[in-house]
């Protein structure tokens, strides 16, 4: 094989691309990975990971502000924003280095630059100021990810109007912050800045915040955020942003139809993302694009044989663990591994790391009903759980949805402390097609928050002990 020919060329080294490359190597294929910025992609460097580091600082700040509740006294708490940001950058850097060594260990050839398809089977790598390299590839995996979407009149300038990028490395704590969009990204930033003391306003166009979550959970989250001092407008839109001297005046149309203006120090735009499908040479192939993502089948295959797409560029849900799963599935598909199963979307969990945390998997109550099913719903509030009370975290709910006829676990929706770490139990249960009977017979450890998963199941069938 010539030096520049590979079994698989992966374009993009994020949470989709690099696991795909590693798995393909494990299966004996020769692999090259092309990355134009940082290994680990958005997730490791400008997304999932650094935001969790930031949110951890905010969480600890929150505890320090309430130290007295726990019998501790702390003087006034100083916030060193630069240090908070530095910590998150250090975390990212550490993981980025980790991915580099994983690539070395697995003998993946990493090429720096922007990869594009000259034609099916040939990838060109463009590097600033250098002659491009070309790679022959029997298979090409598109893992180019996504970027923040802009709306007309709402464009980021990187100074006063931020996208997630700038929001992650703030130079200053805004006194008054406007967050446009209440998906996971917007809400996490809203929560972070609120917990550090900013005055936060959230504007959402749909009738409720966190629109993909179960309605009841959205409602509880809304209540909590308002209690924390956030101002939330649903069914509202921001029609204009006028930049002044270090401030932004936003024109907001509220649900009632009234138009109001308000002044903010910073604005964060979190109105969705678009796939990075441009400039990749896809027009030289039969790959189909639907609006802003690449069309794939259940096997990550595109319309062009030998070209695959995974992760954010392949569409919703825009989650790193979905990208990773697709990457592994794609590599296995290419290697001819037998007995593969297409990814089951309804078993992909979603987590939001605001305070209180939110985590869910499966059908919402509304979706289960719309399916025509007879369902049983179990609810267990945090306030009924011993550990939650001992922790001083009494706000939250564990909600489970079962098919009334078969006992199939259809969905689980949680809000409260640590629920992002609990949801995996329900995800495993779903993948094993467990029914309520097995969950009821499982002995959960005491005292833990996880007992609420048990009690919620019991409650669905009228057998809860602790409420």
């Amino acid at each position, binding site marked *: 094989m010539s030096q520049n020919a590979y079994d698989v060329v992966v374009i993009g080294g994020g949470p989709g691309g690099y696991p795909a490359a590693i798995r393909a190597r*494990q*299966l*004996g294929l020769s692999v090259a990975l092309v990355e134009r910025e940082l290994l680990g992609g958005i997730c490791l460097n400008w997304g999932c990971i650094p935001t969790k580091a930031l949110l951890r600082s905010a969480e600890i700040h929150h505890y320090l502000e309430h130290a007295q509740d726990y019998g501790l006294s702390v003087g006034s708490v100083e916030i060193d924003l630069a240090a908070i940001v530095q910590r998150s950058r250090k975390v990212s850097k550490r993981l980025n280095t980790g991915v580099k060594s994983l690539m070395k260990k697995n003998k993946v050839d990493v090429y720096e630059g922007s990869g594009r398809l000259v034609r099916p089977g040939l990838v060109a790598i463009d590097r600033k100021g250098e002659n491009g390299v070309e790679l022959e590839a029997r298979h090409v995996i598109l893992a180019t990810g996504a970027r923040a979407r802009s709306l007309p009149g709402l464009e980021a300038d990187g100074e006063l109007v931020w996208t997630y990028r700038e929001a992650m490395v703030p130079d200053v704590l805004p006194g008054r912050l406007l967050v446009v969009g209440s998906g996971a990204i917007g809400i996490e930033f809203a929560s972070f800045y609120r917990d550090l003391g900013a005055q936060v306003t959230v504007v959402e166009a749909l009738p409720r915040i966190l629109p993909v979550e179960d309605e009841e959970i959205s409602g509880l989250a809304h209540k909590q955020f308002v209690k924390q001092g956030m101002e939330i407008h649903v069914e509202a839109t921001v029609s204009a942003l006028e930049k002044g001297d270090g401030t932004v005046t936003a024109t907001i149309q509220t649900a009632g139809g009234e138009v109001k203006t308000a002044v903010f120090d910073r604005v964060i735009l979190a109105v969705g993302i678009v796939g990075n499908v441009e400039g990749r040479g896809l027009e030289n192939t039969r790959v189909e694009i639907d609006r802003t993502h690449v069309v794939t*089948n*259940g*096997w990550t*295959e595109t319309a062009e044989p030998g070209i695959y797409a995974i992760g954010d560029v392949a569409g919703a849900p825009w989650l790193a663990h979905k990208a990773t799963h697709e990457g592994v599935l794609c590599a*296995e598909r290419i*290697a*001819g*591994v*037998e*007995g*593969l*199963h*297409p990814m089951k979307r309804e078993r992909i969990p979603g987590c939001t790391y605001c305070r209180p945390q939110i985590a869910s998997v499966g059908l919402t109550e509304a979706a289960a009903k719309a399916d025509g099913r007879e369902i049983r719903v179990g609810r267990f509030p945090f306030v009924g759980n011993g550990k939650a009370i001992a922790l001083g975290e009494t706000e939250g709910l564990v909600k489970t949805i079962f098919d*009334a*006829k*078969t*006992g*199939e676990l259809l969905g689980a929706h949680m809000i409260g402390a640590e629920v992002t770490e609990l949801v995996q139990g329900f995800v495993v249960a779903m993948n*094993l*097609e*467990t*029914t*309520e*009977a*097995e969950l*009821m017979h499982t002995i959960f450890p005491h005292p833990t928050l996880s007992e609420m998963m048990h009690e919620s199941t019991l409650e669905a*069938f009228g*057998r809860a002990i602790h409420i």
Partner: protein
Amino acid sequence: MPRLSSDEGTATLSSWLVAEGDSVEAGAIIAELETDKATVELEAPVAGRIESLRVTAGTEGLKPGAELGRIVPSASATRSRRTDAEREPDPTPDAVSHDAREAAPADEGADPVGRSPATPLARRVARSKGIDLGRVQGTGLGGRIEKADVDRSGQADAEAADPGIQHDAADSPDRARSMASSGGAAAIEGAGGAGFSTGAATPRARSTPDFAGGDGPRPAVQLKLRCRMEATRAVRARLNEGLVEGASGAHATLNDFVVRAAARALREVPGANLRSEAAGDRAGRGGAAAVDIALVVATDSGSGVVRVRDADRKGLAVLSTEIRSAADGLRAGGPREVDVAASILVTSFGRFGIESAHPMLPQGQVAVLAVGAVVEEPVVLDGAIGVGARMTLTLAFDPTVVGGAVMARLLAAIRDHLEDPLGMLL
């Protein structure tokens, strides 16, 4: 012990042509059976080794279904029965299987890597619907039976009893898969001299992608039997005599009779009328689903497929006319149906003199019936040597969608109609 005639007669095993310990090819003649009407040869259903002969030569009064002996399928027989989809050996050096790969053939029927054969949900749904888990093919991890597999099995049209969920009731023990005969040995059974393939035991997890762009030919189990076609031939001759050439009732072909027999059989045999999920129909609506029959038709440029809808509701004359005009339309350059997921696809090789074929399953098709030529051969009729007409039917089906027992019943029903055609003409 095969069924040798349409009446419930008995037979004598006149002689064994093999001994215990012999290795045989699939289809090899291993014994001679005698009824009061004819001598019939018994074929080995699989390649393998004769493990035991249970009945001595000369034993009379054998009824259909009686166990005559046991044959242990050879590894190559198992492999060839598995799938065409089996490609290069898995390159992974993993010793432990974390993935959904199948265990070695020797584990047929046993738990691959010790996994439970059915999920709790699948067990409960099967119990509430009265479905025998042993006849459900699992497509989950490691061949595990999942709820979707039970829903698809379409064996019972029984009303789903309200399970009144028993949280504490012990699950009824999973019935052992009927395919897993002791030690992998396959009993020699059959119907009408059929080779009964037990390849359906392979719990291969099959993937069904949402999109087209299929993954090539799918695993197919082949059932074969020979029909006595004397009666149908006679009826056809008489029918065609009465038809004036060129009048609205064209000559009926033997193929038309096969289609009619298949349509009736699909209506009669519960659970046999299935379509691939790729066709968009939910398999398992059994008797409620329409009986559509697709036929392969030869054209100048190769072949095409025509579809007859509601074939069970059309009499022979109507079927014959419809098939003829659809075929003519196709030959004249009419639109070709590409996706013809029908209850069954019939492909006939008879006019080329081909005696039998092992068809593959095209995308979207769950069952294919291959019809061979009618072969004239000497048979014993009323104590004298006469000329008999035998036609081989081969039924290929997707074992991950439907069980072997149902398809065997279907094939037997088709044969019964062809051997005694007056019933199906009404």
